[in-house]
């Protein structure tokens, strides 16, 4: 993976032009909300992957990278919006690489050098855009519903393929199972057909051989001893003679068909069937009379149908992507509300089933009679076809059950067979009887030919059914093995993540949660996440833990997941304002966690809390010069940094333009910012404010007083050591400081409102210029005057509160505060 040395951002998001030097080390971006921090995060993500997830994820509506990544004033020039990254690749012997990417050609960055090994590293990065952790992910990991959390974490761990394969295997298994059932039915029908042709009640090999051998003996053919897969029932029969009958209808077959049809009619019109139909009609009438119950049955049936159509990872109606198990669970949960409706519907459908089967049987039998009728009783054919046409919707209505009105109409007269049908059957029967009886030999020949024909049909159906059964068994078995094995692997992964997460969290909360543990519990499509709460048991993170603890959990979980996902390749991460609620007491531990557990990972952290930034610096997570502090943002100029030299130039330029308002505003905001820093560095006592909002009047006087006291203390210490020259110099510095303070008139604020900073914006440029100059002089007293250092003075402290010295970063200033 990579380390970022430097980033230059041009005309991108809210930034006009900005260069930040990370030096391959941890870096912090600090600033109030709306000052451009997220622009830096977006630029890093865009530069490294060509994408900005905030502009391309769900819920972004009409916002797009192409249209909205460029600065608003360059929206029509996406080629101007670009990010240039200077990278170092540790795995390639710290090779330096420059990557430049503009929004117009987001997928075609210019990479120098573009050797295959460099491209491979950058491609890996494109494939792992999860190096940015924002509050969105943090919430998704910690506080989301188990299904959503599972989605997010699976996406982070690249587990989508695991789910996709499970879905594909399930789809295949379902389809094979359906085919197996359908082909089994076809096979059973073919078997029944054969049995009827053989004129035996059940298809058994011995009985088949016996029946066939009777006919073969009549024909003088050798008997069959066994029935193999290729045995021909009419083996040895004179070829070229399909049937001895000269008529178009085979009398034997037609007689058999007539018998079947009459039996089917008789079964449908028995007293029992008629009574069943009447009872069902009464019950369904009562059901449909209650609109609430009828509606429940309709909804329940719809949901049942929906479940049967869920065979892939998408809604069967609108194709919205879903995890297949989550969608099934959702529909099943809805179905539970209709348990009574399910019972009612299932019971009625079960009673309708035999009636539907009788109708289907009759329809099949009449189809055969209709075929004969077309040859030997044509004038009666329409009677049969008319009835069969009417029968089809009845069968469909009874099978579908809904709508109930159609079921009721069908049930009303389903057992009444029109007399025309009986007439047609009688006519066909009469015509069949009229066909001359075949001789015994002809009958035997016809028998063997018909049975062989049906045997072939049955064999083919049985082969298809067997193959479908094998496929279904294999597909089911493969699916079962996959589910079991992938679950084992995932459980192992989650266990590792769980252990690492717990370890990290204990590290940062060792003072009060040293026995903390967590449980990640995967189940079909979900990922439960419970955390231990002070020995009281495991609960969801949001149940009892504070927001600050939850933030800490989110970061720990992210780090554990990244460690599991990338291992030693986890060299770069952006933590975008994700630690804002971590309390002061645990910030140092968070810094130590990142420093000690991830020494090879470069973190870019953003925060709107400047105290947090100070913690990062003082804990050594961020180098003294490895941060940027944005003061404000304007659409014309983008984020403004708190850089001293730029501030005074900015004020001078504003005054030259006569813009006192801007000059006053910049000066006041800068002084508030810098004197807060000075108070922090010098441990100046400031009157506490609950809301943490300190104005210039709150921080400037205490900072100056504290610095003066330090200089005077330094003078006394120098005297105690006999260093009179140093003592004199310090006394001189204290006087100069006091003079600068007086020159700024800040000592008069309390008694002279006319010179108060609230009034600066009302001054003329001529009046405000000396004010700015005076404050420039005053502020400079708190900085090292060496150009290469230019750092703020700070107190070197031996904990808890021993002030050792006043120093600057370069060591030029080192005022001893420890007396002899």
């Amino acid at each position, binding site marked *: 993976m990579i380390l970022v040395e430097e980033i230059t951002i041009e005309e991108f998001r809210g930034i006009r032009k900005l260069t930040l030097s990370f030096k391959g080390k941890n870096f912090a971006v600090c600033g109030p909300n709306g000052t451009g921090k997220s622009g830096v995060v977006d630029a890093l993500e865009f530069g490294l992957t060509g994408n900005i997830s905030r502009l391309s994820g769900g819920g972004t509506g009409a916002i797009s990278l192409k249209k909205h990544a460029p600065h608003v004033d360059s929206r029509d020039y996406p080629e101007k919006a670009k990010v240039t990254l200077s990278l170092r690749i540790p795995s390639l012997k710290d090779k330096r690489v420059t990557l430049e990417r503009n929004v117009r050609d987001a997928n075609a960055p210019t990479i120098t050098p573009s050797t295959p090994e460099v491209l491979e590293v950058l491609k890996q990065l494109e494939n792992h855009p999860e190096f940015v952790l924002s509050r969105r992910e943090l919430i998704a990991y910690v506080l989301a519903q188990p299904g959503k959390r599972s989605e997010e974490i699976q996406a982070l761990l690249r587990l989508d393929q695991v789910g996709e*394969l499970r879905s*594909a295997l399930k789809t295949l298994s379902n389809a094979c199972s359906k085919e197996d059932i359908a082909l089994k039915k076809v096979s059973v029908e073919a078997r029944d057909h054969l049995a009827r042709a053989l004129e035996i009640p059940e298809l058994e090999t011995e009985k088949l051989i016996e029946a066939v051998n009777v006919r073969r003996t009549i024909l003088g053919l050798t008997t069959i001893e066994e029935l193999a897969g290729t045995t021909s029932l009419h083996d040895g029969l004179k070829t070229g003679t399909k049937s001895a009958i000269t008529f178009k209808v085979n009398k034997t077959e037609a007689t058999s068909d007539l018998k079947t049809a009459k039996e089917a009619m008789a079964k449908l019109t028995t007293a029992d069937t008629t009574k069943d139909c009447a009872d069902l009609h009464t019950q369904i009438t009562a059901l449909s009379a209650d609109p609430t119950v009828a509606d429940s049955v309709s909804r329940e049936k719809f949901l049942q149908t929906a479940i049967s159509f869920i065979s892939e990872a998408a809604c069967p109606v609108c194709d919205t992507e879903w995890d297949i198990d989550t969608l099934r669970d959702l529909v099943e949960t809805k179905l539970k509300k209709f348990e009574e409706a399910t019972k009612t519907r299932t019971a009625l459908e079960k009673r309708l089933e035999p009636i539907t089967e009788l109708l289907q049987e009759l329809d099949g039998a009449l189809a055969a009679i209709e075929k004969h009728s077309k040859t030997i009783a044509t004038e009666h054919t329409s009677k049969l076809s008319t009835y069969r046409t009417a029968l089809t919707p009845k069968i469909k209505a009874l099978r579908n059950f809904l709508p109930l009105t159609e079921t009721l109409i069908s049930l009303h007269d389903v057992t009444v067979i029109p007399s025309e049908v009986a007439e047609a059957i009688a006519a066909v029967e009469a015509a069949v009887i009229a066909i001359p009886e075949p001789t015994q030999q002809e009958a035997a020949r016809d028998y063997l030919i018909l049975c062989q024909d049906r045997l072939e049909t049955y064999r083919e159906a049985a082969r298809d059914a067997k193959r479908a059964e094998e496929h279904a068994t*294999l597909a089911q078995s493969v699916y079962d093995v*996959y589910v079991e094995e992938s679950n084992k692997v*995932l459980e192992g992964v989650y266990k590792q993540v769980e252990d690492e997460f717990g370890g990290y969290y204990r590290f940062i909360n060792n003072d009060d949660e040293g026995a903390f543990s967590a449980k990640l519990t995967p189940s079909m499509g979900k990922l439960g996440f419970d955390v231990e709460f002070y020995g009281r048991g495991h609960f969801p993170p949001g149940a009892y833990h504070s927001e600050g603890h939850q933030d800490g959990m989110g970061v720990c979980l992210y780090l554990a997941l990244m460690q599991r996902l990338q291992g030693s390749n986890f060299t770069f991460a952006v933590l975008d304002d994700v630690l804002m609620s971590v309390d002061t007491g645990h910030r140092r531990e968070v810094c130590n966690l990142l420093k000690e557990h991830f020494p090879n990972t470069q973190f870019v952290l953003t925060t709107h809390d400047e105290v947090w930034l100070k913690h990062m610096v003082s804990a050594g997570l961020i180098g003294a010069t490895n941060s940027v502090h944005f003061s404000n943002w304007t659409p014309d100029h983008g984020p403004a940094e708190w850089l001293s030299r730029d501030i005074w130039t900015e004020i001078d330029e504003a005054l030259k333009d006569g813009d006192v308002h801007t000059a006053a505003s910049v000066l006041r905001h800068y002084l508030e910012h810098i004197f807060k820093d000075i108070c922090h560095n010098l441990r100046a006592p400031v009157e506490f404010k609950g809301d943490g909002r300190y104005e210039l009047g709150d921080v400037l006087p205490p900072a100056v007083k504290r610095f003066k006291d330090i200089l005077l203390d330094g003078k006394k210490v120098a005297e105690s050591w006999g260093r009179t020259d140093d003592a004199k110099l310090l006394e001189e510095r204290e006087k100069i400081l006091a003079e600068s303070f007086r020159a700024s008139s800040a000592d008069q604020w309390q008694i002279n409102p006319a010179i108060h900073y609230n009034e600066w914006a009302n001054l003329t440029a001529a009046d405000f210029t000396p004010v700015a100059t005076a404050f420039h002089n005053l502020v400079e007293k708190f900085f090292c005057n060496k150009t290469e250092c230019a750092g703020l003075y700070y107190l070197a402290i031996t904990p808890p509160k021993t002030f050792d010295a006043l120093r600057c970063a370069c060591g030029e200033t080192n005022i001893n505060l420890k007396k002899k």
Partner: protein
Amino acid sequence: MDTKQPNNPVTGVPKQAFEHFLIELEKKGVSPDVVARLKKTIIDQGDVSDGAIKAALFPDNNTAV
């Protein structure tokens, strides 16, 4: 023209899961040919689509599924 994008070989946790799955399939007595075809499809080619899995399991295509 075939516009289908080639899939990348599987890596990371998915690869681990798929490998365990294939080893266990062989242990369960599933034909080595089937296992080899599945390996080629899901690990080497990174293709876990319905069609690819069907072709790997039933290469003779004699199913209406």
